[in-house]
C-alpha cells in the first residue's frame, strides 16, 4: 500500500501503474465464478468418491447443457440491457411445435431442429418487436408472452405429451461424440460461436455498446433497435434449440419442457458476471455459471443432502457471487 500513498494527488498515475497478473485476473468478470467452480470441484472430489468418475461428469455436463443453451441466449438479451422471462415457455412451445412437425407433418428428422430454431427465433422476435420497436419494458412484455407461450403449449397438447418421436430423431438428444453427449457438444460449439460473435464482430461489440450506453450507441450511428431485436431473436432461438433437444432426449414432446429453466438461465448468467443493467458480462462466465449450477445439484445428490436444501444452497451461492463481484469492482 505504501506505493499507492506515494502517488498521492495523481489518481490516474495509480491506475496506470503496471498491473500484475493477479490484478488482471480479478478484473476479469468471470474470475469469481472460475474460483468458485474450481473450489467446488475440489471439495466434491475429496468428499465424494465418485464425483470425478467419467459417468458422473457426463451426467453433470448434460445437465448443464440444456439450461446452459437457454442461458447463452438470455446473456445476449441481458447484455443489450433487456431481460427475457419467456425463454422457458418459448422452449416448451418450440419443443411441442417441433415434435408435431416430426410426427404429424412428417418433416424430415434432420430438418426438424433447424425449423424449430427458426420458429423459436420468431417467438423471440415477437418480444423484440415490442421491446426494441415499441420501447416497452422488457420485463412486462416477456411476462405477458411467457403466459401466452405457456398457455398455447397447453392448448395445443391438451396437457398430453407427443410421443414417440423415434429414431433417428432421438439421436440428437441421446447420442454422443466420443462419449460426450450431443447436447454438450452443441452447447460448447455454440458457446464458442457466440464468444467469437461478441468479441470479434461489429454486431457483438454493438451489443455491449447498446447495453452500456444506449444514447452513445445511437449517436455512434449504431442500429440500436436492430441489434436489440436480434438479441431477442437469438434468445428465442437458443431456447427453442434447448427445448427440442430435450424432447429428442426424452423421446417425447412434453408440455412441461422448459419449466424451471428461466430462473436457471438468469442465475447462470448472473453467476458468470453478467450485469442486469446491461453492457457487462461474458459468454464464458455464463457457461461456467451453468456448469456451477449443475455441479451444485449433482453434489447435493452425491453428498446425500436432501433435494429440498438444494434451492437454499443455490440462493446462497448467488448472494455470494454478488458479494464477490462487489468487492472485485470496488478497486
Amino acid at each position, binding site marked *: 500500500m505504501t506505493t499507492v500513498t506515494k502517488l*498521492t494527488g495523481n489518481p490516474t498515475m495509480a491506475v496506470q501503474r503496471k498491473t500484475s497478473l493477479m490484478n488482471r485476473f480479478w478484473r476479469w468478470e468471470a474470475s469469481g465464478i472460475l474460483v468458485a467452480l474450481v473450489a467446488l470441484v475440489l471439495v466434491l472430489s475429496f468428499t465424494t468418491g465418485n464425483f470425478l468418475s467419467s459417468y458422473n461428469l457426463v451426467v453433470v455436463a448434460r445437465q448443464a447443457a440444456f439450461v446452459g443453451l437457454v442461458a447463452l441466449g438470455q446473456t445476449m438479451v441481458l447484455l443489450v440491457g433487456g431481460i427475457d422471462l419467456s425463454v422457458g415457455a418459448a422452449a416448451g412451445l418450440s419443443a411441442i411445435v417441433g415434435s408435431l412437425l416430426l410426427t404429424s407433418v412428417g418433416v424430415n428428422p434432420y430438418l426438424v431442429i433447424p425449423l424449430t430454431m427458426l420458429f423459436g427465433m420468431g417467438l423471440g422476435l415477437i418480444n423484440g418487436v415490442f421491446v426494441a420497436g415499441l420501447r416497452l419494458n422488457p420485463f412486462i412484455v416477456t411476462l405477458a408472452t411467457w403466459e401466452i407461450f405457456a398457455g398455447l403449449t397447453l392448448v395445443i397438447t391438451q396437457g398430453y405429451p407427443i410421443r414417440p418421436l423415434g429414431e433417428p430423431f432421438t439421436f440428437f438428444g441421446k447420442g454422443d461424440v466420443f462419449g460426450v453427449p450431443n447436447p454438450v457438444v452443441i452447447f460448447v460449439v455454440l458457446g464458442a460461436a457466440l464468444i467469437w460473435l461478441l468479441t470479434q464482430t461489429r454486431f457483438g461489440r454493438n451489443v455491449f455498446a447498446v447495453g452500456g450506453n444506449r444514447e452513445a450507441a445511437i449517436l455512434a*450511428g449504431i442500429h440500436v433497435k436492430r441489434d436489440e431485436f436480434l438479441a431477442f431473436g437469438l434468445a428465442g432461438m437458443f431456447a427453442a434449440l434447448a427445448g427440442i433437444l430435450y424432447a429428442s432426449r426424452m423421446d417425447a414432446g412434453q408440455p412441461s419442457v422448459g419449466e424451471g429453466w428461466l430462473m436457471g438461465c438468469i442465475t447462470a448468467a448472473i453467476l458468470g458476471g453478467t450485469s442486469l443493467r446491461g453492457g457487462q458480462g461474458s459468454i464464458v462466465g455464463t457457461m461456467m455459471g451453468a456448469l456451477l449450477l449443475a455441479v451444485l445439484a449433482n453434489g447435493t445428490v452425491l453428498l446425500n443432502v436432501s433435494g429440498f436444501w438444494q434451492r437454499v444452497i443455490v440462493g446462497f451461492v448467488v448472494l455470494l457471487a454478488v458479494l464477490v463481484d462487489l468487492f472485485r469492482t470496488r478497486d
Partner: protein
Amino acid sequence: MSKFAFEAHNVSRSFGVVQALKNVSLGVAPGEVHAIIGENGAGKSTLMNIFCGKLQPTEGTLARNGEIVNFTSPIDSQQAGVGIAPQEVSLVPNLSVYENILLGAQLTKGPRIDWKLTRAEAIEHLHAVDDTIDPDLRVRKLSKAQQQLVQIARAAATKPRILIFDEPTAALTYRETEKLYSYIRNFRAEGGSVFYVSHRLDEVLALSDRISVLRDGAFIIELDPKNTSKETLVNHMVGRDVSRAQKALRPDFEKADVVLEVEGLCRAGEFEDVSFNLRKGEILGVSGLIGAGRTELAKCIFGLTHKTKGKVRILGQEHEIKSPADAINLGLVYLPEERKQEGIFPLLSITENMAMPNLDRFRSLLHFRFGDMQKEVQGYVERLKIKIGQQKDRITSLSGGNQQKVIIGRWLMKNSKILIMDEPTRGIDVNAKFEIQRELRRFTDNGLSIIFISSEIEEVIDVSDRVMVMHEGRVKGICNSGEASPEQLMQLAMS
C-alpha cells in the same frame, strides 16, 4: 450553388406547444468556425440535435453543399459527413477508450474486426486531441475532462467535414482547452467547417470567424468577432443590459469567527496535508486543474469519503464527520458538481425538492402542514428570484440555473452555516451565472460561509474573498483575491 457546406433553411421545431426553434436560417462555409451563442433555452442544443439527425425539424430543411438533405437519424448525418461532440458525455463506460472512439465503425477484415488496425487508428484520432490518455483503459476509469476529450476524438473519428461542438470546454481545463483550440484550427485550415456552441464568450471571440446569437428559439443577429465586445454579446443574448457581478466591498474578515478549520487533512491517493480556515461570511474560492483533488477534498469534508489523517473543526469544536448526515447536522452542506445525478429529485415537485430535508419541521401529529411548507418555500423562491411556474411543477421543468437555486434554497431553509459549492455555474447560462454570483454575496450577508470550487479562474477571483489554489492534491497557496491576477493563479495551479 450555395456558399455553405452545411446550412439550415427556415428551420422550426416545436415540442408540443413549446416552440423551441422559430424559423432559423444559418450556415457554415468550408474552412470556417461559426459560433452559436445564446442563453439556456435559446434553442442552441435543439438546433445542434437537428443538425446531427437526433431530432427532425417540424418545418424547414437542411442542405449539404446546397443540396437538400433529410436526416432521420444520426446514421444519416454521419454519412453526410456531419460529426458531433455532444454536450453530455455519451460514451460506453465499460468499453475501452479506443473501442469507444471507433464504436460502430471498427475496422473489419471480412466479418471479423481487425483489432490491431482498429486500435492503431483510434489512437491516431485520440492523439490528435490528447496524448496523455491511456487508450486501453475503460472509459469509466477516466475523469470527466478526459471523457470529454475522448468524446471529441470520437467525433473526429467519423472523419466529418462538418464538426459540431456543443459546449466542448465545459469540463476542460486550461491546457486541454488550448489543445482543443489548436485541433479546431487545424481542422479549419484543412477546409473543415465547425459549428461551435459555448457559454465561454472569451473563447468564442478568440476562436470563431462568425458569431450568431439565438434568443428564445429565434435568430437574433450575426456578429463579426473582430469588432464585437463581450458586453455586446451578452446584451444580445439576454436582450437587455446586464451589469457584471459587482465586486462587493469585502468586509474585514480578520475579526470574524472561524467557522470551519481544516488541519492537515489527508486522504491517501487523493489529497495530502490540506489546511485552511473559513471565516463567517467569507467566500473561499478553490481553484485548480481538474484532478487537483478539489472535489475529493469537498467530498471528504462532507463525510462522503473517509479521511486518512487530519482534523476538521466546526465553530472551534473538533468533529468526526462520518457521513453526510453528520455534516448536515453540523450545518455543513455540499452542493455536488453533478447536479442532476446527486442533487435533485427529478420526479418530485419544486416544493418537495426544497423542503425535502426539512420535512420534520412541517409535521403535525398525523399530517404535513403543506400550507406552511408552501409559504416558506415561496419566501425563498422570492428571495432567490427563482423563476418558476407553479410550486407543484416538477423541478425538471426549470432551467439548470433555477434548479440550482432551488437546491440552495433547500439548505438556507435548513439553516445551514457552511456551503461547499462544486462548480455551481458550470453549463448554466450567463444570466443565471451572474445572478448566482450576485446571490452568493447575499447568502454570505445572511451569515453563510461558502467554499466555492470552480475551474474558471476569473470567476473565482470575481466571486471570492480569498482564493486557495490546489495542484495534485496539495495546497499551493492561499491569497486575497484582490491581490491575485488570473495569470498568477494559473501559474500556481499548473506547477
